[in-house]
C-alpha cells in the first residue's frame, strides 16, 4: 500500500511546491498556525484547569496570567504549585513531544515517499526502547531521574547510526537499504526488549518496561522540558528550513540534483534531524503510537503536500493532538491515569481508518 506523497495534490496540489516561499505559502502557514495556535492556547488553559485535583477555573486563569506577568494569582499555594510544577511542565512536554513526532513523521513520509512511514521506521523508537530497558533493568533509572531519558536517547542514537552504516555499506547510500535496515535493526532491538521482559524474574522491572513502552507524560518535569525543548525546536527549525529541498527530492533525486539541490546533504540532514528529535521525544515520553503517522497524513489532506506548509503545521497539529490526548489520559480515569500511548492509538486508529476510507479515491489506494 504505497502512496506517492508528492502527487496527491490535496489542498493546492504541487503548484509552487519547489519555489521560494510565496505569499500563498506564507498565507497558508500563517492561517494554519493561527488556527492551531489559538486552539493550542485554549487547550493549554483547559489542560491547566482540569485534573484529579479540583482547581477553580478563575484560579487557573489568574495563575497563568500571573506567570506571564499579568496580575496576581488568586490560587492557593497548593493550587499554584500543582499548576506550576505538575500540570504546566506536562503540558509543555506533551506539546513538544507531539510536535516532534508530527514533524518527523512528515519528514519520513516525504523522504520515503510513503505515507505509511512514521518516525520509528528506521528503528529510532526501538533503539530508545532498548536504551530505556537497559536503564530500568540495570537499576540506573532508580539512581537518577535523568538516566532513563539519557539511556533512551543514546539507544535511539546508536540505532540511527547502525541503520545509517548499513545503508551506506559499499560507499553508496540507498534509501531502500535504509528502510530495510531500519526494519531489521528495529526487529533486533525489539527482540532484546522482549527478551529482557521475558527473562527478568523481577516483576517490577517487567512492569516498568511495559508501562514505559506504552508511552506517558507522567514523569514530566521542567527539567525534562529544558532538555527536550532545544533539541526538538532546533530540529524543527532545520526541517522547515530545508522543506523546499524536500519538495524537490519528491520529484526524484536526479531531478533535484539538476535543480541545484545538494541531495546527499539535504537527505542526511533531514534523516538525522528527524531521528534526533524522535529520539528526544521517545526519551521523555516512551513510545507513543500513531501521532507521527496520522498527524502529517491529516495535515496533508487539509493543506496539501508542500512540505513548507506541511512540516510546520504538522508540528503544531502534533503538539495539539498529543496535548488533547494527554489531558484526556489524565482525567478519563481520574484520579487514576491511562497511558497516553494507549489513548493515541485508540483515538488515532479509528480516525485513520475513517480518513483512509473517505479519501480512498483521492489517495489512489
Amino acid at each position, binding site marked *: 500500500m504505497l502512496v506517492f506523497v508528492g502527487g496527491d495534490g490535496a489542498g493546492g496540489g504541487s503548484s509552487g511546491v519547489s519555489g521560494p516561499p510565496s505569499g500563498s505559502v506564507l498565507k497558508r502557514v500563517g492561517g494554519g498556525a493561527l488556527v492551531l495556535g489559538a486552539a493550542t492556547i485554549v487547550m493549554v488553559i483547559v489542560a491547566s484547569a482540569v485534573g*484529579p485535583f479540583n482547581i477553580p477555573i478563575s484560579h487557573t486563569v489568574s495563575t497563568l496570567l500571573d506567570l506571564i506577568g499579568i496580575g496576581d494569582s488568586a490560587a492557593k499555594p497548593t493550587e499554584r*504549585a500543582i499548576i506550576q510544577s505538575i500540570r504546566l511542565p506536562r503540558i509543555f512536554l506533551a506539546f513538544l513531544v507531539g510536535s516532534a513526532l508530527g514533524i518527523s513523521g512528515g519528514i519520513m513520509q516525504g523522504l520515503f515517499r510513503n505515507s505509511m512511514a512514521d518516525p520509528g521506521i528506521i528503528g529510532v523508537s526501538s533503539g530508545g526502547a532498548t536504551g530505556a530497558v537497559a536503564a530500568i533493568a540495570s537499576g540506573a533509572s532508580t539512581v537518577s531521574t535523568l538516566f532513563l531519558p539519557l539511556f533512551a536517547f543514546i539507544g535511539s542514537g546508536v540505532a540511527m547510526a547502525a541503520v545509517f552504516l548499513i545503508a551506506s555499506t559499499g560507499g553508496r547510500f540507498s534509501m531502500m537499504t535504509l528502510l530495510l535496515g531500519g526494519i531489521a535493526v528495529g526487529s533486533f532491538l525489539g527482540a532484546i526488549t522482549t527478551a529482557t521482559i521475558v527473562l527478568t*524474574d523481577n516483576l*517490577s522491572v517487567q*512492569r516498568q518496561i511495559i508501562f514505559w513502552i506504552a508511552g506517558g507524560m507522567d514523569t514530566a518535569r521542567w527539567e525534562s522540558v529544558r532538555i527536550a525543548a532545544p533539541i526538538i525546536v532546533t530540529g524543527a527549525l532545520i526541517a522547515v528550513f530545508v522543506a523546499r529541498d524536500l519538495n524537490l527530492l519528491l520529484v526524484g533525486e536526479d531531478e533535484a540534483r539538476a535543480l541545484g539541490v545538494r541531495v546527499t546533504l539535504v537527505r542526511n540532514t533531514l534523516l538525522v534531524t528527524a531521528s534526533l528529535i524522535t529520539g528526544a521525544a521517545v526519551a521523555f515520553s516512551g513510545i507513543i503510537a500513531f501521532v507521527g503517522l496520522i498527524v502529517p497524513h491529516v495535515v496533508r489532506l487539509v493543506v496539501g503536500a508542500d512540505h513548507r506548509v506541511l512540516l510546520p503545521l504538522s508540528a503544531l497539529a502534533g503538539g495539539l493532538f498529543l496535548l488533547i490526548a494527554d489531558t484526556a489520559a489524565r482525567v478519563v480515569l481520574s484520579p487514576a491515569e491511562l497511558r497516553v500511548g494507549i489513548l493515541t492509538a485508540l483515538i488515532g486508529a479509528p480516525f485513520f481508518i475513517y480518513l483512509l476510507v473517505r479519501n480512498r479515491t483521492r489517495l489512489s489506494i
Partner: protein
Amino acid sequence: MKYSMRFVLMVLAVVVIAAFAACAEGDVEVAPTVAPTATAEPTATATPEPTVEPTPVGPDLSRFADVPEIVDPTNYGWPRSVETTEGVITLDAPPEKIHSLSLGHTEILAALMDFERLSAVYSFFVDEEQSNIAGLSADHNMIGFDPEEVVALEPDVIVASRFTNADTVALLNGAGNLVVRAALENSALGNVPNILLIGYLIGAEAEAVALVEDIEARMEVISDLLPGGDKPRVLSISKFTSVFAAGSGSTEGGIIEQAGGINAAADSGIEGHLQVSVESIAAINPDVIIVPQPLEGADLFIEELVSNAALADVPAVKNGEVHYVLPKYHTTLSHWNVRGIEQLAGLLYPEAFAGVTFEDFSSWPDYGVGSE
C-alpha cells in the same frame, strides 16, 4: 470290696484337691479386676504423674468441614481427594515431593512441612525484600519458568494459584501431573480455608490448624486493641518509573482495612493497582502514605513526596506520616500479610499498640506435630 473303697477314697481325694486347686485359680483371676480399682484413685496419692497419661489433644478436625474443596471431610486417611477448578485429584499417600508455582503458596507450605519436601523454588523466592522465605530458598534447588523443568522434577502434586497461566496448568496436567489450583486471598482470615486445604492435601492437618489458630489469635489481638472513632485514610503507593496506587481488591488495600484504616485509593474510586500522578495524591489527600517497595527506590520516592510543594498541604506530608513499609509483608498473599497488618496497625495507632510486640511467623517444624 476293700480295693473299691480305696479307689472311691482316692477319687474323692482327687476331687477335693482339684476343687481346692480350682478355688485357688479363681482367686488369681479376680486380682486384675481389683487392681484397677486400687489404681483408680491416683489423684489421691502422692505420685499420680507416672501412672496417668494426659489425653493428647489432636487438631480440631471440624475446621476442615468448612473447606469446600475437600471431597470427604470425614476422611483423614489415605487415599484422600480434593476438588478444585482442575477437577478431582486423589492422593493415595502423603505426597513426598510437592511443587508450588506461586510464592504465596510456597510461604504457606514452608509453615506446614519440611521445606525439603518442596521439589524446587524460583529465583524471585530468594529476594529478601519480596519473599518471606528468602533464607529457606537460598540453598534450595532452583529452576526456571519452563514447565518442562517442573515435569522433570516428578512431583507427587503441584500447587497452582489462580494467577497461574491456564496453558501452564494444561501442560502439566497433560504430562500426567496432579495439579491443584488453590486460592490465595488478600485478607488474613480469608486465607484460612486455603491454608486448611493445603494442610489436608499434604497430610499436615495439625500444622494447618495450628497456623490458622495463630493467625486468628493475632487478628483477635489487633481487633481487640483497635480503638473506635475516626479511621485514618491511608494511601499505599509505589513508584516504578510511574506511580501506582493500590485500590480496592489489592493486597495492600486489604491490609490497610484490616489494620483499622480506610484505603484512600479505593475510597477515591481506584480499583486494583492503577497509575496515578503526583497531583492525584494531592486530590486523594490521605492522612497516611505507605510505600511498600524495595528500599532503594522507596527512599528516593519518599524524598520526592515530602519535598514536593504541591503536596505540602496533604495531611500525610504535613504531619510526617509518609512511611516505608516492608514490601514482603504488604504484597504477599500468604499468611505473612498478617505481619503487614500488625505493623501497620502499630503505625496507625501507636498509643493503642504501645508495648505490644509482634513476632514473625514460624516455619515448620514449629507448628504442631511436624517436630516429631
